[in-house]
Structure formats: C-alpha cells, structure tokens
C-alpha cells in the first residue's frame, strides 16, 4: 500500500510541507490545518519530529460510526458524512497523527496525496510502497452475515 514516508534526519523544520498541505486541503495557509506536522527536536542533536499518518489503521477499530475505512490503495480514508466528530481516533492513534481544528467538526489525516513531497526542499518526504496492513477487526465483523 501507498504511504507518506519520512527521512527526519533531512528535515530542517522549514514548515513548507505544513503550509502546502493546509493550502491544498483547506485553502488556507495555516499549519494548524495541516495533516503533517513538524515539531522541534525532542533533545539537542536529535532530528526534527515529523508527525504524519502511516496508514496503520488502528483508528478503524475505535470509530463508533465505522467512518474510517481502508481504500483500495491502502490509504485509510475518513467519510465525513458518517463522522460524528468524537475524536476517539485522535486519542487512539499510535502516532498522534489524526488532527483536529475547532473550525471543523471532523478530524483530518494524511491521505498520501504527495503534495508535500513536491515542496520539501530537502527530500525529507517521499511516497513509499509498503506491505499491506492486516485486516482490521471491523473488516472481520463486516464480512460476516448480519446477526
């Protein structure tokens, strides 16, 4: 499956990816509306921290409305019309890569569109092809016959 992969050692913290993402998906230059976030190094000598969804799919099984689903290309997509904005996915993401903003009732995440890859001056971001994630518990339920 396709994911947005990172080389944090190359990141200079310029934030161009954050601005490009917010501009692409929310039409505004506001890094608080970006689906990729750059944080300063935790300690001196360590690289910048790039926080972005790697499509692991842990969120799929905590969503009360089954609004999170894995598309054919492996990307976990949020169906906004089903989402009730509970942010359970935000709390349960192992990478803390589901984001939210008070201007929107639904949270948002990286869908591996690649726009940030194009603007990163250091090549710290790239689209990678990785092994498919295992089926979620939700998938197992939905494949069964309804009770």
């Amino acid at each position, binding site marked *: 499956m396709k994911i947005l992969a990172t080389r944090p050692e190359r990141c200079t913290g310029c934030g161009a990816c954050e601005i490009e993402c917010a501009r692409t998906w929310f039409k505004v230059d506001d890094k608080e509306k970006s689906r990729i976030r750059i944080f300063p190094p935790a300690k001196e000598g360590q690289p910048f921290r790039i926080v972005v969804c790697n499509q692991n799919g842990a969120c799929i099984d905590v969503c009360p409305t089954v609004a999170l689903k894995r598309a054919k290309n492996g990307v976990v997509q949020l169906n906004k019309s089903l989402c009730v904005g*509970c942010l359970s996915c*935000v*709390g*349960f993401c192992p990478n803390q890569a589901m984001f939210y903003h*008070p201007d929107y*009732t639904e949270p948002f995440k990286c869908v591996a569109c690649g726009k940030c890859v194009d603007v990163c001056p250091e090549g710290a971001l790239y689209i990678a092809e990785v092994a498919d994630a295992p089926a979620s518990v939700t998938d197992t*339920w939905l494949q069964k016959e309804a009770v």
Partner: protein
Amino acid sequence: MSHHIAEMKAAHRLLAEFTYEKHPVQRGYTNRTLYINLSDNTIAGKPVSEEMKEKFTGGKGFGLWLLWHGIRDTTKWNDPENEIIISTGPIGGITTYPGTGKSLVVSLSPLTDSVMDSNVGGYFGPYLKFAGWDAIEIQGKAEKDVIIFIDGDTGRITIEEAPLEPVDTHLLTDILVQMYGGDDHHARRAISTVTAGSGAQHTRFGCLNFSWYDLRRRAARVKQAGRGGIGTVFRDKRIKALVVKFSDLKADSNGPADLGRLQRVGAKMHKEIHDYDDQQCGMRRHGTSYLVGIMNDYDLLPVHNFRYGSHPDGHKIDVKVWDARFTQGVPDGCWYGCTLSCSHAVDGFVLRTGPYKGQRVIVDGPEYENAAGLGANCGIFDPDYIIEANFYCDTYALDTISVGTAMAFAMECYEMGLIDKRATGGLDFRFGNAEAAIEAIHQMGRGEGFGAIIGQGVRRMKKIFAEQYGADPKILQDIGMEAKGLEFSEYMPKESLAQQGGYGLASKGPQHDEAWLIFMDMVNNQIPTMEDKAEALHYFPIWRTWFGLCGLCKLPWNDIVPPDNALTDEPAKIPEHVRNYVEIFSAVTGRQVTSEDLLLMSERVYNFQRVFNLRMGFGTREHDKIPYRAQGPVTVEEYESRAERYDKQLKALGYDVEKMSTPEKVAALRAHRESQYEKLVDAVYARRGWTKNGVPKVETLQRLGIDYPDVVEIVRRAGG
C-alpha cells in the same frame, strides 16, 4: 422492511399527530419540553424558563421539577396522573468526551411509592434533545398499547396504537429500528427506542431498556434505566415503545459555545484512556465485571443475601471468565465517543431455557451488579446461568439488582425455614439452585407462581411471608435488604459505617449512585471520624448527583485516573477530571463556572428531591432506617464467620468477650452499631443543613434559592 414488520406497521392506528418547527440546540438546550397525555392524546410543547435552567439545570432536575408540578400530594404510581419524564441535560449529546449521552428518568415508584430517578445510557435522551425537546413528559394512560414516535428529522410526533408487536425488548427493539429506520444500518442507528417487557407488567421492579446501535454487530443493543420500577409504570400506561429518530448527528449538534475547548479536553481524555485503561481497570476489555474478584478478595462481595463477603467459588465468576466470554476489539460505547467503552456483550449465546430457548442471542452484560446480584448473592457461581438470567431480565425488563437482592432474600427465607414449598409453589429455593432461580425469572415474565411473589419486592414479601406463612416479622425485617421499599444494590455495607449512611440516607433508596465509600472508609481508613464521614456524605452525593443533571456517566470520572492523580491534594476527588467537567460545562453553556458552581447546582436539586419525598409522605428520619443485615451480623453464623474481627471490636469497646456467648456478643455489637448509625445520621443531617428529623431547614432552602412558597410550606409543616 420484511413482510412481517410491514404487517405490524400496517396494523398501526394513528391516534394523534403534532408537527413542530425545528430549531438548533443552543448551548445545550432547546428551551422547550414535550408534554404528552395518553388519556386524551394531547401533544404539546412547554417552554423552559431561565429560572428552570438556573435552578434545576436539566436531566433529573428537570424531571423532578416537571413531576412536582404535574402531580398532587396523593398521586399514586399507577394513577393516570403519574408521569414518566426523560431528559438528558445540557451536556448530554456532545461527542468529544466519553460518557456524555446519559438520560435521566423520573417517576413515582411502585416499590417506594415516592419519587424515583434512574439513569441510563443509549441514544434516546440526546436524540430527543436534537429532535427538539429538552425532556419528554408523559402523563395519563392509553386504552390500548401505543407507540409514541418523535421524528426529529421532519418535526413530527405521533401516537400510534400498535397491537401486533411483541413487548419483550430483544424482539421489539430489533423490529422498531427496522420499522422506523429502514434497511440501511446507518439509518437504523438514527433510531433509538425505549421499551419494557413482560416482566415489567407483572412485577414492581420493571426497568426500561434504552437502545443504541452497534454497526459492527449490525444490531440494536440496550442499556437499562434499572432502579425503581419505572418500567412497570411504563407498561401500566400501556406504552409499548417510545421511538425517536435523529439522523444528522455532529460534534456541534449540542450548540456548544466553544467547540474547540470540547475538542481539546475530549482528545486529551481519549488519549488518557488509550494510555492507561489497560493497566488500571481494563474497562475496555471487561467493563465493571472485574469488580467481582476484587470484592471477593476484600470480603465485600454480597454472598447469600449479604450474609458473607466472599466465597471459595468466587473465582468462577471472576474477570478471567468475562475477558474470555466478552467479544474483544469492538467499540462498545453506549453513546458516540465513549472510549471507556464498558458495555460488553456475549455473542452467539444459545438460550437454554424459557420462551426463547434455542435462540442465538447477543447478551448485553453482565456488569458487576448482575454477576454479584444474580450470581454471588444467590450463591450461584455459574457464568452461563448469570448470562442467561441477565438476558432474560433485560428482555423481560426486570431490574437485575432488585431481582438479585429479592431472590437472595427469598432463598434465605426458604433456607431458614421461614417459608417452604407451599410458598414457593414447589421450587426448591435454596442458595445455589440455578434451575429454580431461572424458573422464578420466567415466572416473573409470565406473572405467575413464586416469581410473581418475589416480583412484589422485598418490602411486600416480608408482609406476605409474615401474614400468609407465619414467618417471624422481626427476622424478616433484619434480613430483608430493602430501605424505603427499594432493594439494596450489590455492595456489602456491613463493615462500613459510611456506606451504611450512603445507602440509608440516599433519596431514592439504597442505590450506590449517591455514595460509594466502602473502600475510602474501611480499607483506606481515610474518613475515620464521624465528622469525616459526614463530610464525605455531604460532598460525594452532591458531586455525584451533578452527573444526573447534565447527562453524564460517572464512570469516566472515576474508573480511569490520570497518572499523577496520587500526587494531588485530594486524589479521591480526581481533581483533574473535576476540572475537565468544569471546562466542559463552561464550553457548552458559555457560562464560565467553577467547581463550587457545579456543587451548588447539585445541592439545589438534591434538597428539592428530599422535600419531594416529604411531600409524598416520606422524607423524614424514620425513612432513613436500614435493616440490621446492612449494619452487622444478624445471626450467630454471621458473627462466627468474622469472629476475630468482631471480638476485637467488642474488646476495644470494653467488653470481656471470653466471658460472653455468641448470642450475647451479637446483641452487644448490634447495640453499638445501631447507636453509631444514629450518631452518623445526626452528623450528616447537621452537615446538610437539615433538622434532627432529616427535614431541610428553611434557611437551607433560602441559601440554595429554592424557597418557593409550596416548598417552604412542606418543610414548615414537617418542622423544618
């Protein structure tokens, strides 16, 4: 829709219809309540005043206020004048924080003959609010079974005669989500139902089942408004079901003043649960069922009608069993966004007895109370029995706590020879006899046999056993675990004076929603003096009542704690979570409040409920008495099961225990404990601003701003 369901729908006869304009919810309120009278098919809206919101907040507060005005002093539970009121509260319906979808149900109880309140999860209350109504108030009685349908999508309410649908919840809920929702599962989750069952028709402790929808199981599931018999009132009014529809739920449907603040506190709390639930209580794995083993270890599990606190077979119904029986990995939250997710289910359970024998069903539970009450208290340590009994109590709509405690009482009476097979109709009603117990539950469903007698509740059973079978009323009084007419819930208060007060002084009867102090008192020894206990019995009931004003579940407050909680000044209060609730209330309503403000909201409603009890002819000190089984060893066997501990206590009081017989020691300990309880009651009344007879003083009402003329009149008459 299947042919079978279409037929049932076609048989509906429209009795009344009401259309209304929908308005968005503003800061947690719609500012109107819905009134329905089933005797004359009135449907009307009533405004919610600023005063009502300020003084009564919502939820239980609204329920009490509306009931106060709807009935007379002499109204009985089965008069048409009695009402059932359901309301969520201003916070109910937000989605970002766990445990924010509770409904509060208020009515007059067939068990206590006084005002009762009961809380419940599921979607109904919040959906009702988003449909346009802060509360629904149902008065009168229908001639034939009706369904009330509130279509919050179109703004239309109907009362429909519904002759064909079965009344038992597991069948009815499934039919209704299809009938009113359709075939698509997301359309079905837009429906929530309130139903009862055949057991509610034939006992005094019928409950109400409130539905939510499980999209993975693709089935409706239910939570219970358990205590007090409001399901019995529901069926007495010939209500078959309430149905609400609301399709477009969003994080801001509740109209909050500041969504961002709700998002931040919610995301933080979800992460706390993600990070710590596993190593703390494991609610996401097994809900409250883990408490069975803990209570057994600490000698606090009710066994054999609260005689003993543990049993060697306790491990057979312990958490390891439930971890294996509950299906794991599904979000079992009964309102959207509850990541504490405590409502687990046993899937694919094949029923072995009763009218639904052979059916494969989903069983909602068991929670701690069911395992302790239906199981340990009755001496039955068989998980399959507990699961089956849980299922039938749910579908028949029987309060599992009352069933457990009432059956345990009946079993002890049988074992002591106070009643025999004449009374039980041939059932060998010993502790541990699961076959007899499940048959009694089916009899409650059918309204016949010994089950129907147990279904009258402990208070009335005492009278029946004394009058019809010559049983000794003094012993019955000592071992019958009821107070105010309501059965005790499944915790052992015997060794905790504070918990005795927590149960005895609770407004509705001995339900632990007001105070749960056993560990603080007995194990932690954090409230050693009478003043400490009185302070705890002032603070905790007031704080815990607040949840019922707002539509909140208490479990996310205290069944998960932040990692640094131990280092705070008052860890028992879980200060960070209290701050979360202050934040949430402020963010929803736009009113910046403090934790003291929350306590004041609650203290008002708390005192109002006490006066309401007075109004109905109760509410004074004599009604706060508890049976001696709740306070100490009634029998020689009970004394000897803890002889070391009791001897030590008597020695400390100056008794020469070596020279005393066990009956003498039982009597001496009893005299001491009964007098301790009276001293505790004195201390608590003083702390609460009540007279020595338990009546709120006028100056207390004035301080709280609830000194309405009719309220003051009642307390003055009672010497307040």
